[in-house]
């Protein structure tokens, strides 16, 4: 690169370069796609748009983006395909580690690990993206489809994820999150919000997963104490795929046929969703059930408000320990809403849905199910939602308008 004007003029030009000099960098599939695309992602400057051509990019290694303010844009989720079927290394297909990045209009297929991970990447937008493991649900598929972690302001809009062996859309240890208008199917968990604060999960379809939507909190992590999550206006139906998560992972404990599961969080609102055909239960509210060493960790659930959900057929094939016994005891099927009961009235778990609620009557989150004291319960209290709407910075919304 020539640098003829080494004086003040070039400094001024550089300072202003972001909006003025923003350029499109087109990358086509074909020979050398790995090095050409990776080079474009490295040499891009803030404001640039890396444009993925139409066709299949046959990639041999993970890709990564570490430049802030870059947009990666394809010709559409069925037209520009990043295929990692021949990937030889790296823990994910595409890794983003910079802020203010927009990913849109392309697909990631068959990555060996996670498909798209963004770590410490604030203000990230995922829009109109397809992630798929094309061999269907298999234990050997990568763990997460769309995987933002340790980030502030995460917008996931209009994505489709199929086949993740952990969670299709997984947001971990982040703050201020919107997951909307997206579809997750044939994953172990469709959508999972974990160890995160302030999330809206709405207008999504979660179907044919093992569990539809999970709101979890786990111990021994830098950010924990998950809270303020709203799950509303989603369609959570027929999540009946047998659990295919590798053992050891927390989602391996999710029973097939789970609609929404809340674990070890507080201030959770579940309203205006449509549930149907989830064989274990529509809504499960439970504490963390495994042994842990972490004085700062709170394993029980508190402050849950459930209202105005539509409940179709459910609880007809419970896949959790003691499920058959419970079904037999409650007239052939498990009630659509189950709470472990830990904390009693102090837990403030309220529900105004006109369906039976099963209180397992546990006193400790890790209590064996055999010693539970299950009974039908009314979870009386103010179940109306009151958490504020999550708002993204305007530039993020503008990026996909």
């Amino acid at each position: 690169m020539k640098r003829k004007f080494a004086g003040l003029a070039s400094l001024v030009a550089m300072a202003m370069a972001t909006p003025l000099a923003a350029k499109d960098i087109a990358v086509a599939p074909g020979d050398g796609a790995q090095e050409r695309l990776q080079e474009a992602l490295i040499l891009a400057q803030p404001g640039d748009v890396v444009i993925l051509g139409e066709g299949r990019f046959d990639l041999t290694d993970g890709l990564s983006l570490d430049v802030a303010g870059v947009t990666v844009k394809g010709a559409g989720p069925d037209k520009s395909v990043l295929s990692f079927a021949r990937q030889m290394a790296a823990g994910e297909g595409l890794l983003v580690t910079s802020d203010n990045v927009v990913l849109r209009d392309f697909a990631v297929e068959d990555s060996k690990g996670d498909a798209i991970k963004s770590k410490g990447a604030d203000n990230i937008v995922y829009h109109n993206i397809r992630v798929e493991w094309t061999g269907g649900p298999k234990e050997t598929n990568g763990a997460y489809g769309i995987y933002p972690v340790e980030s502030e302001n995460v917008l996931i809009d209009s994505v489709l994820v199929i086949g993740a062996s952990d969670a299709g859309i997984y947001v971990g240890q982040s703050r201020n999150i919107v997951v909307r208008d997206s579809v997750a199917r044939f994953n172990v968990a469709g959508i999972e919000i974990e160890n995160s604060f302030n999330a809206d999960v709405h207008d999504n379809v979660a179907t044919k997963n093992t569990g539809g939507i999970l709101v979890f909190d786990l111990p021994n992590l830098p950010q924990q104490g998950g809270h303020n999550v709203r799950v509303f206006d989603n369609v959570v139906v027929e999540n009946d795929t047998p659990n295919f998560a590798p053992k050891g992972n927390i989602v391996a404990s999710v029973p097939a046929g789970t609609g929404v599961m809340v674990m070890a969080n507080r201030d959770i609102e579940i309203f205006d969703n449509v549930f149907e055909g989830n064989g274990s239960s529509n809504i499960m509210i439970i504490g963390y059930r495994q042994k842990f060493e972490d004085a700062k960790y709170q394993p029980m659930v508190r402050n849950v408000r459930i209202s105005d959900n539509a409940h179709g057929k459910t609880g007809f094939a419970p896949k959790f320990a003691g499920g058959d016994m419970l079904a037999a005891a409650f007239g052939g099927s498990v009630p659509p809403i189950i709470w472990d009961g830990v904390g009693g009235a102090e837990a403030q778990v309220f529900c105004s849905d006109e369906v039976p609620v099963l209180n397992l009557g546990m006193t400790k989150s890790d209590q064996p199910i055999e010693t539970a004291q299950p009974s039908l319960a009314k979870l009386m209290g103010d179940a109306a939602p009151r958490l504020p709407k999550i708002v993204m910075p305007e530039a993020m919304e503008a990026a996909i308008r």
Partner: protein
Amino acid sequence: MKRWGVPVALAAAALLTSAAPAPLSVNDRVITAPGLPKKLSEFGFFSGPGVARPSPVLTAYSLNTPLFSDYAEKQRFIYLPAGARVSADSTGRLAFPVGSALIKTFGYGTGADFRPIETRVLLRRAGGWEALPYVWNADLSDADLKVAGTRLPVTVTRPDGQSIAISYAVPNKNQCKECHSSAGEVVPIGPLAANLNIAPASAKPFRARIDWAGKPNLGDGPVWNDPATGSLDARARAYLMVNCAHCHNPQGSASNSGLFLSYSAASDRAATGIYKRPVAAGRGSGGRDFAIAPGHPDQSIMIYRMASTEPGVAMPEVGRSMVHEEGVALIRQWISALPQD
């Protein structure tokens, strides 16, 4: 046997070859100016061919316990600008002044048979460290910048004598940062004073340029495979520190895992992996419940991932396509000896 022997011998041989041209002087401006130099020769680190005849102002060093990189031989050098000084904090981490460079060449073969594949440079510029990978051309006349990395077919002879053909991966610029990252900034990994091993002839002048915050402690850390240098626990921790903790620390690329293998995290046993359940491991869990199950290496995720070469399972995620059998053996032995609850 000191591992600094090879580069020092090469440098000495170069000095004795009277017909050779005078060594280049290092070009300070290329190190400090912004931009990405296309050729390694622009720096003036080596007179060549290849990495033969390093500039006499470079200080060769090795590490007591190194990062495993597919059994590659590594030749490492420190460059300090004239008159510049290094400071060491109380933990012995060295802070290099602007204009410094760390130069590491990866290749195979020893002594005169050493053939370089790539040379990675870490340049200390005003804005921080810049990490750049250079790949040697066929006649070793120069090495070209490959910001996007590349793959090269290489046949590796393992310590047990077995030869294996691998696809050697030169990391791209971002992958350099993935390992060399702390709180989003690029930092050197190796040069902890206690892990640094410098040839006696150059150690004295180099040490004289270090300003210590605490007690000087250069070059006495454990050698991972030499029981005379430390206990099993000390050597295993040193191995994990160098091979894992560059990502697995609270500011590193694996901060979200909660698995911290740096010395400073050792007091929190769950954070170091003991009875710690996986978080985002996916099939990397191998169906096992804990990162480290004391007494049971075969039930420990750490061993499963170290012993794998499969992307999505293998740890570290980049930088190797082979299993470091001897390293796995050390960690197996260590986990076997850890007390169970």
